[in-house]
């Protein structure tokens, strides 16, 4: 396997006012892998993802496939190949399922690719096809998460940032979603997964970073992290 | 941080105080120097705000009046030719700005008399200030009776004059005109209820008309800024009047008349002095043909003064002077006449001379003051709109 680094983050810091939400973080994501960032609420995970996709200003460098992303607009970054499934899903409630998907195809110019991806999404989530005319605000939590992931697939790109996909979902649904994430990964996408559900995240990930108050405190392969007693106590509840 | 704000605040206050006073002082110096051979008159006009057209006419006529006089060598005062200088201030159509304009003209510009403001809302507060400062003021256009009367004491103000007739007189003339000349038995009225002038005209018309045996079949209103009168006109149409009295500003008249025609109303309209602007002809086109209205003056009058005024004004400003322009011109004429008669440019002398003016030949007819009030004795002109022009129809003198 060609182990190329696709995303490289160096000394990334973000502050809101005087508060440092992220404090000098450095990490890499290797192509084709699932990398997870775990940590409690407020540890800075979401901020980190928002910085990577250009939504908030930051210090330090983020490069994607060797291209420095600093100063680029989210629009440029997204069309450059990074997709971001935000925390809380952020689907557009007043739009139908189909409209949500169509909208996320903004950067897709080719009709053929659009149809191809649509088929792919509906094969992953047959439920979405059943509900494609329904207002997305009326979907259940799990369906909304499917739609959010579906949108990211539609946008395309080689790296997918996933922010807490398991939030508010029943265990059964969480399993289903994580299975889909694995599938997506197998289809060739690199995934950067932010999760609170450390057990599940480490279960599917190749590599993990542990965040605490804006800093990385541990990192390692999933075996290393799962074996670390401190992490087991703090995050795995065992 | 605190100190910085401290400094900003102190600085801002100091700067603004210094600025106002120096602005005042520098003017004072120059006026002292120039006082020897220049008479300064203040003009307060509605250059911005709700009736900018009135202000524009007033400003044009004022500049023309002064230019004409100065070009002819100036005004002879006590054997010496003196030039007139005017200072024009904007009151934005608002009472407080009219007051500060007046105060500024009096205390800083040291004017001997003030022409304006035209709207009663500005003229009344201004008259209070000129009364205290003992400076004569002539409002060209404010027809509100209270402009020249001190309501508290119930007697006329000493320093407030006007160049126009009163609303009550005009309203009576129009009601009688509708009754006797137009032979109307039923009249409908549509007016701007937010305008003190127009509401006054409507009320007087209604009272006089009913007193003389007529009936008012519809009494409809709108407020300033309205452009759609269809609902009111539909009501009027249903009341089948013989005449529709329309005390409306000339900018509204075309809309009302056109909308009436679109609704199939054929009843003739009758207007007041608020119609009197050459703009009306442009705005209204053929729609107003055959209607009568009252005015302060007629641009088609055969009087030589009027003919010259209209010619000069058209040459300068490329449009026919409206009544505000004519009245402003006359107001200046009255002041010049008074200065000449008094042989002095002192405010008190001017005031006394104005109150004694008899039979001044103005653009708007003969103007006399009784000496008791600031209201002139002068006639109403009734005009007919015909073939895109205002034609003199009749004069009604008190």
């Amino acid at each position, binding site marked *: 396997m060609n182990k190329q680094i696709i995303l490289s983050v160096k000394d990334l810091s973000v502050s809101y006012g005087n508060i440092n939400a992220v404090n000098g973080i450095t990490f890499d994501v290797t192509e084709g892998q699932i990398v997870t960032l775990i940590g*409690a*609420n407020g540890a800075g995970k979401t901020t980190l993802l928002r910085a990577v996709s250009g939504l908030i200003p930051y210090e330090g460098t983020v490069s994607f496939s060797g291209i420095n992303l600093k100063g680029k607009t989210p629009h440029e970054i997204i069309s450059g190949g990074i997709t971001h499934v935000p925390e809380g899903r952020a689907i557009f409630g007043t739009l139908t399922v189909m409209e949500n998907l169509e909208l996320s195809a903004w950067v897709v110019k080719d009709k053929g690719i659009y149809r191809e991806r649509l088929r792919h999404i509906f094969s992953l989530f047959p439920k979405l096809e059943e509900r494609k005319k329904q207002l997305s605000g009326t979907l259940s939590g799990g369906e909304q998460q499917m739609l959010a992931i579906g949108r990211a697939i539609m946008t395309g790109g080689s790296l997918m940032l996933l922010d807490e996909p398991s*939030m*508010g979902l029943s*265990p059964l649904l969480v399993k289903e979603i*994580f299975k889909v994430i694995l599938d997506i990964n197998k289809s060739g996408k690199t995934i950067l997964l932010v999760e609170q559900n450390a057990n599940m995240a480490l*279960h*599917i990930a190749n590599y993990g970073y542990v965040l*605490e108050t804006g800093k990385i405190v541990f990192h390692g392969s999933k075996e290393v992290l799962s074996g670390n007693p401190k992490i087991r106590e703090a995050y795995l509840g065992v | 941080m605190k100190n910085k704000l401290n400094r900003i605040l102190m600085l801002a206050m100091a700067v603004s105080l210094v600025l106002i006073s120096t602005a005042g002082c520098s003017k004072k110096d120059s006026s002292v120097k120039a006082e020897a051979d220049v008479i300064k008159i203040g003009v307060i006009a509605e250059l911005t705000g709700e009736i900018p057209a009135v202000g524009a006419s007033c400003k044009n006529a004022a500049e023309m009046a002064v230019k004409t006089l100065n070009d002819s060598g100036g005004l002879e005062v006590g054997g010496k030719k003196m030039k007139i200088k005017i200072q024009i201030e904007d009151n934005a159509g608002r009472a407080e700005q009219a007051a500060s304009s007046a105060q500024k003209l009096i205390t800083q510009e040291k004017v001997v008399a003030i022409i304006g403001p035209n709207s009663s809302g500005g003229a009344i507060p201004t008259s209070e200030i000129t009364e205290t400062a003992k400076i004569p003021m002539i409002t060209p256009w404010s027809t509100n009776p209270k402009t020249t009367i001190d309501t508290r004491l119930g007697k006329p103000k000493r320093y407030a004059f006007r160049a126009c007739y009163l609303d009550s007189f005009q309203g009576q003339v129009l009601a009688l005109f509708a009754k006797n000349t137009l032979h109307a038995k039923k009249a409908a009225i549509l007016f701007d209820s937010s305008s003190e002038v127009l509401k006054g005209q409507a009320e007087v018309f209604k009272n006089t008309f009913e007193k003389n045996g007529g009936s008012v079949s519809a009494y409809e209103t709108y407020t300033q800024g309205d452009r759609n009168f269809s609902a009111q006109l539909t009501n009027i149409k249903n009341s089948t009047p013989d005449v529709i009295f329309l005390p409306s500003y000339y900018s509204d008249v075309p809309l009302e008349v056109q909308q009436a025609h679109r609704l199939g109303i054929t009843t003739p309209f009758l207007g007041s002095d608020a119609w009197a602007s050459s703009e009306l002809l442009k705005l209204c086109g053929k729609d107003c043909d055959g209607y009568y209205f009252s005015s302060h003056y007629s641009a088609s009058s055969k009087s030589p003064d009027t003919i010259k005024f209209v010619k000069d004004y058209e040459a300068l400003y490329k449009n026919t002077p409206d009544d505000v322009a004519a009245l402003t011109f006359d107001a200046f004429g009255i002041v010049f006449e008074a200065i000449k008669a008094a042989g002095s440019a002192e405010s008190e002398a001017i005031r006394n001379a104005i109150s004694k003016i008899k039979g001044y030949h103005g653009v708007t007819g003969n103007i006399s003051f009784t000496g008791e009030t600031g209201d002139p004795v002068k006639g109403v002109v009734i005009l007919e709109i015909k073939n895109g022009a205002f034609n003199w129809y009749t004069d009604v003198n008190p």
Partner: protein
Amino acid sequence: MDLLKITGLTHYFGGLRAISDFELTVNSGEIYGIIGPNGSGKTTLFNLITAVYRATSGSILFKGTEITTMSSDRINALGIARTFQNIRVFNGLSVLDNVRVAQFNKFQYNILEALFNLKSFKKDEALVTERAWELLKSFNLDHRAYDLAGTLPYGLRRYLEIVRALATEPSLVLLDEPAAGMNQVEISKMIETVKDIRNKYGVAVLVIEHQMSLIMGICEKLKVLDFGVTIAGGLPKDVRKDAKVLEAYLGSEVMD
């Protein structure tokens, strides 16, 4: 004695059931924990108790008084205060004022006394200010008392929120994820703080938390919510062994 007694509490958002048939009894001076995955209805429960939302059905009794239909400020006056998951201190007020404003119900002076700066106003203000200082001192916030709350670091704002809640002189405090975003050292400090709230101020605590160390460290009783449904309850040591809880909250260990 039952301080808070909730029976049959159910709430719907649109057609979605956020919480259903919830039962809870908190005794005076007790520390009670509520856990469950994100979105399982824990914060909704707090919002129902403090009347941010109105319950679809069920009843909430506090000190024997029905508070289900009461307004939020009355409920607070009765003795329930809370903190918020995503800190909601008044950023535009100073730290001191955040604590003083929470004593709104404790003021005796009327509006005229305030407007004209009369004696009773000054006396009351002095008392309230003193109380605020005491609270700030005991939570080590006094050195930042004059700063705007919006300028405090994250951790201190969490404490400020707790101080603000205590300033209302409650007999029950609802803490919504007090240790979110904290590391182990900070969590142990928070554990001490929560214990203090009960021991020093005699206030019962109902706490939502994901940090197991905090929950296990302080809670005398636990309730586990999943999808708005109570799936387990009882003593912490029993709950953590419950299979359903492990499955729902901690995530199943094995995946196929």
